């Protein structure tokens, strides 16, 4: 089990990770989700032991790792842009960690072959790294990290460089792979779909701090604060209840203006999103202090045009503590 307490990483006065407490239990898949620049990669590097100036405690099964150098931690890290060894072929990259463990040759060969088969690259052993596509390089990087059988596998934006179709397929493959191998996994991403599809537990990070920890379902249903709500695409507004609360665009219904229980506004933009229209509605604000914009998704029925007056009725409001 990985335990982080008060983990802090700073570079020349800039604090990338600010006092993070986190546990990753054996066999658990934990995902750190956050916008770019939120300190996710720095956190992974600190856990791997690659940030000599990191402060706080990193422990495995209760043992402090402060004095354990990266190569003795037994943690695997798959880097964001692969960082494959350009002077070795695919086999040389995947077998690298096994050679470091001084395994017998036969076992190295077997495990290298198995790891490549696992990522669907059987027969690629003698290929040069620069001959591979971005997706293939990503799989080699994954195979390299997996083959060493790390006690903790860390992945930095594992599907970042891939196109959308390939990503959607690999997300499911990866999750079943991690579950099948019983791997303890900590990975970071800025992509919601990836995070929610892969993780047992989500950690939303922002400016070096943890904003919320919970299962994907819990985070999805109850964002803890305004940042998380907005990051997940919710509206954060006090237009509906008078108190600052979060509401999903899907949970707002368009009703005729003046219908009971609705607020009134004007449609200011309308875009088409795959299976629905997304409206931006300027809500009439009695105080006139700040213009309030609300995003509403409309699937069927009345699809108002830009400039039309609409009424809005919201369900499933989540009242936020920090609004």
């Amino acid at each position, binding site marked *: 089990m990985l335990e982080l307490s008060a983990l802090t990483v700073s570079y020349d006065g800039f604090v990338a990770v600010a006092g993070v407490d986190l546990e990753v239990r054996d066999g658990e898949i934990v995902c750190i989700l956050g916008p770019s620049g939120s300190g996710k990669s720095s956190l992974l590097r600190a856990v791997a032991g690659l940030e000599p100036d990191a402060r706080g405690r990193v422990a495995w099964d209760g043992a402090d790792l402060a004095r354990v150098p990266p190569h003795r931690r037994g943690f695997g890290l798959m880097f964001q842009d692969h960082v494959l*060894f350009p002077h070795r072929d695919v086999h040389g990259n995947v077998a690298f960690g096994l050679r470091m463990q001084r395994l017998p040759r036969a076992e190295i060969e077997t495990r290298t072959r198995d790891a490549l088969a696992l990522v669907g690259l059987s027969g690629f052993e003698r290929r040069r790294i620069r001959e591979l596509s971005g997706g293939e390089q990503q799989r080699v990087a994954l195979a390299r990290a997996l083959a060493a059988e790390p006690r903790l596998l860390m992945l930095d934006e594992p599907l970042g460089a891939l196109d959308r179709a390939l990503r959607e397929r690999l997300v499911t493959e990866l999750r079943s792979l991690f579950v099948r191998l019983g791997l303890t996994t900590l990975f970071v991403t800025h992509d919601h779909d990836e995070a929610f599809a892969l993780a047992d537990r989500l950690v939303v990070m922002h400016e070096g701090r943890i904003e919320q920890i919970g299962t994907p379902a819990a985070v999805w249903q109850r964002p803890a604060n305004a940042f998380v709500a907005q990051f997940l695409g919710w509206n954060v507004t006090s237009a509906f209840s008078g108190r600052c609360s979060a509401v999903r665009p899907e949970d707002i219904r368009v009703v005729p203006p003046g219908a009971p229980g609705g607020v009134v506004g004007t449609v200011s933009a309308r875009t088409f999103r795959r299976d629905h229209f997304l409206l931006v509605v300027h809500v009439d604000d009695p105080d006139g202090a700040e213009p309030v914009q609300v995003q509403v998704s409309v699937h069927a029925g009345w699809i108002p045009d830009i400039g039309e007056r609409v009424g809005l009725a919201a369900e499933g409001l989540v009242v936020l503590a920090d609004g």
Partner: protein
Amino acid sequence: MTTGAWPRPARVALVVVPLAFLAVFFLYPVIAIVGRGLAPHWSVDFDPVGQVVTDAALRHIAWFTIWQATLSTVLTLAFGIPGAYVLARCEFPGRGLVRALVTVPFVLPTVVVGSAFVALLGDGGPLASLGLDQTLGAILIAHVFFNYSVVVRTVGSLWSHLDPRPEEAARLLGASRLRAFREVTLPALRPAIATAGAIVFLFTFTSFGVILILGGPGTATLETEIYRQTAQLLNLPLAAALTIVQLVAIVALLLATSWIEGRQRVALSLRAASETARRVRTTGARVFLAGNLAVMAVLLGVPVAVLVVRSFDTPTGLGLDYYRALGEVHAGSTLFVEPAHAIANSLRFAVAATAIAVAVGGCAAFALASSRRRGLDTLVSLPLGVSAVTVGFGFLIALDHPPFDLRGSWWLVPIAQALVAVPFVVRVMTPVLRAIDPRLRDAAATLGASPARVWREVDLPIVARAALVAAGFAFAISLGEFGATVFIVRPDQPTLPVLVYRLLGQPGPLNFGGAMAASVILMGLTMLAMLGIERFRAGTVGSF
């Protein structure tokens, strides 16, 4: 590559070793030359330098040096730019092979180039009737032969990555093919053309072996005159004065070049070379392609072919007589040793020079890669721009008395050759060392490699490969080095290039044939070194 983790003494040594080497073997000789030229009798005297400016014959030499370099540059660009286009943009079978063959002349020793054109244009050569032997014409053709690949590589590499769509857009806006080229493509290529032109001008301005062998009475340049004044007339103050004029001109040239290059920087949109190459479709394009390939074959292929043929073409038919004759000292020869010894001499000198160049250049490359020491960068490049003749002449007058009395030392030759090769070693190794991604070390560490293991598994293989490539270049350069070697080599220890030069200067078919045979051997050895480089070059090591 960072050397931050290295102990301080090692870091100091990385800087001190190349600095000390350059100080003793380059700066000190140059200072000695300036001393000889300006103050031959321990008092400042501008007479010798003034003589170069006022004396009509010497002024003619300076003028001719500039004139032939200008003509050579213009001609090389005129032939090279269409060649660059063909090799960059036209797809045709065998393009890779042609590209590789075109670069061969540039790595040939200057002496081999000289004797190839003597074989072609001189007495008994297939083109002797043109009467070009010992004229400016012969020199110009040889310079185009030698520098063609500079233009093809410098301009062609940019051209092959240049986005073709702006030119297409210009065509759609109503520009003719020529107009679109002139207004869109040419401005984009201008920086590369300027760079190639500057390099060719510098090379031909300091050209020595080619002119010494091919030129006649009217074709003396500053370089050949420095040699003549030193070796034949023993007028060292005048030779020193000529060297000073040469040095000033080259420094001015280098400054002008970097100024022009600074102004030429254009933001370009670049594409993968595979996206820009087009299959040849129209008849006009086919004729253009065929014409250029014919120029390459005639200009680059024929001289080498004639050289090889004439090395076997004995009075009694084709045979190995000339090669066999290299093993004997024959009557009437002014050579002191069996010519075959020159092969062994050359190899021994080249091995020693390579070791020195890789050690010194490697240290400089590590120091340069770990920081941005611009001064050191410029300093190690200086011997390249300043010409081998200056190096050789400087050795001759500076290292024959205390504090650095190396008179008669065997090491003088390999040190001079190493000095010429060091800039190439630095240029090959520094970018490779700089390009080692520090995260590769992180990746190795997370896979369980200890710091020592990281160095062995990540740094060493990349560094070693770069060092091998650099060694190959250093070896090829040392093997063919002529300008510096001819000043300082002992008469009884000639190298192959010196042997070729001496044989060409002596009468009789046996000497001429021997020169041809020795040239072919030298060419073969150089090719072997270059093939060795290609083996190790794949992967992380780029070209320069």
